[in-house]
């Protein structure tokens, strides 16, 4: 047999096999997991939800596209992280927020939270939360104006606030309501648990239904896309903390279940705090991160001036992540083992 020309051989360092899971797939999984909660927000808030979430995704994607260098422009869009950031941000916004603000939030979140750090995997703060923190500091009134679920005109009508002209003020809707946490903090008024679990309460688009968020979390856990330690430790800390407080003064402090299902805790603990890029990489670090987040959440909610503190708690723990990582390196195999005599 005549010898053919040798093939062009490829040199690639071992190992040459791969597990099959890739980063973009993981990102897509998170988006899938968020679908039930997104669906619920559409159910409750109708067109408004579409407008707000759509604008924040548009802002995020535009920033991603604008600041990417020519070579990686397509790449950074394909890995779906920009869309995920926009979606997460959108779910934390109040339904009546002007579209331009949601857009700005998405844009700033990606620009300050991701692009300037060098893109995916290099940022140290959660971009979605950064965008939200920016919005909350910039437009405190619009960001804390909550509307009761369901615009008056049915599914296809939007809140007037959504349609404010760019850079212009919000036309406040006639009725505004408060979030369960706000009600509890300022009016000592507890919202029934069923409302918290199934929606129909004032709050941001994605936080109305705790149960659906939990469902997505379970999906992610099954797909192994999520470090289960973080949500478990955050939620656990919150439960324990509220239980202890409740032990001292059940009237004044919220019950564990209320703490668990109110506000953005579910959304934050399952989807934001677990952002792998900005949470500790070491398993022990993940516990510290979760416990720290839980404590800060309760600190701000119970003793702070704000009704809700999940966002700040996660951002603060993001800032502490490099330190946590550094001091929670696992014990290396064979280290610290006494030689058998």
């Amino acid at each position, binding site marked *: 047999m005549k010898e053919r020309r040798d093939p062009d051989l490829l040199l690639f360092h071992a190992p040459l096999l791969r597990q099959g899971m890739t980063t973009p797939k993981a990102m897509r999984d998170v988006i899938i997991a968020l679908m039930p909660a997104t669906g619920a927000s559409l159910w409750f808030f109708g067109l408004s939800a579409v407008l707000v979430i759509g604008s924040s995704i548009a802002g995020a994607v535009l920033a991603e596209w604008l600041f990417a260098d020519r070579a990686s422009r397509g790449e950074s869009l394909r890995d779906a992280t920009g869309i995920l950031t926009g979606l997460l941000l959108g779910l934390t916004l109040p339904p009546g927020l002007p579209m331009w603000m949601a857009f700005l939030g998405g844009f700033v979140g990606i620009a300050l939270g991701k692009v300037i750090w060098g893109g995916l995997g290099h940022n140290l703060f959660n971009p979605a939360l950064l965008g939200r923190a920016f919005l909350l500091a910039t437009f*405190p*009134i619009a960001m*804390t*104006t909550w509307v009761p679920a369901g615009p008056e005109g049915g599914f296809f009508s939007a809140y007037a606030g959504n349609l404010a002209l760019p850079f212009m003020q919000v036309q406040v809707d006639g009725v*505004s309501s408060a979030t369960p946490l706000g009600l509890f*903090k*300022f*009016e000592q008024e507890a919202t029934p648990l069923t409302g918290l679990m199934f929606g129909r309460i004032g709050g941001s688009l994605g936080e109305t239904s705790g149960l659906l968020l939990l469902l997505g979390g379970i999906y992610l856990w099954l797909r192994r896309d999520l470090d289960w330690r973080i949500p478990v430790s955050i939620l656990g800390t919150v439960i324990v903390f509220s239980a202890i407080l409740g032990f001292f003064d059940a009237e004044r402090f919220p019950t564990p279940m209320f703490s668990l299902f109110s506000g953005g805790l579910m959304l934050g603990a399952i989807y934001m705090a677990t952002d792998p890029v900005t949470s500790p990489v070491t398993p022990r670090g993940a516990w510290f991160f979760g416990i720290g987040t839980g404590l800060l959440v309760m600190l701000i909610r119970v003793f702070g*001036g704000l009704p809700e503190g999940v966002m700040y708690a996660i951002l603060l723990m993001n800032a502490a992540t490099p330190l946590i990582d550094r001091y929670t390196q696992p014990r290396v195999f064979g280290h610290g083992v006494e030689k058998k005599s």
Partner: protein
Amino acid sequence: MSSDTLKQAPAPSSLRLVMTLAIAGLVSGIAIIGIYESTLPTITANKARELREAVFKVLPGVSRMQALVYRDGRIQAVTEPEKDEPVVYGGYDEAGDFVGYAMPGAGPGFQDTIALLYGYMPRERQVVGMEILESRETPGLGDKIYKDAEFVAEFSALSVEPEIVTVKKGTGAQPNEVDAITGATISAKAVVRIINETHVAWAEQLPAPGTEPPLAGESTDDGATP
């Protein structure tokens, strides 16, 4: 030029160092006292005017005032309160009759300490005006405690019995209830709390209505009445 500064090795004596410092101190002391003395009258006048304006604002119908302190078990008028001594201002009308107290209070707000002045009429047991002197509350939210006319107006006739309470916006019906500010509940509550605390602190010390110290000359009132 750098090389010859490098070579000046011999260290000057300690005495010279100390003397240089002393002379510098002397000269600067003189300069500072000079500027201080020359600006003092203007500054004092500015401060007095500011205070008076604030007092007149929180106590409607008042045109004269004097500082009052609690000394030797009673409230008395002083020309200049001592440092760190709690003080209230008595407001008097054109005729020199006592109208009410302007009471300064301070306490932690949302962001930082809030300092305020409120007018209190002991006879009616009512707060009749409130002015924020100092605060670093969040612009756009917390700063409504002085920017929101509606909120400030809440304090124009407010009963202190049994104490002032903050209620949700639009629900205040009782004379001792203040409508909170949407989105800035903490700041609003802080204002009310400061007033309550100040009121409690002074409650025992203020004399019974009608026995307030009379206007003691015009000395503290530098040029209020033309």
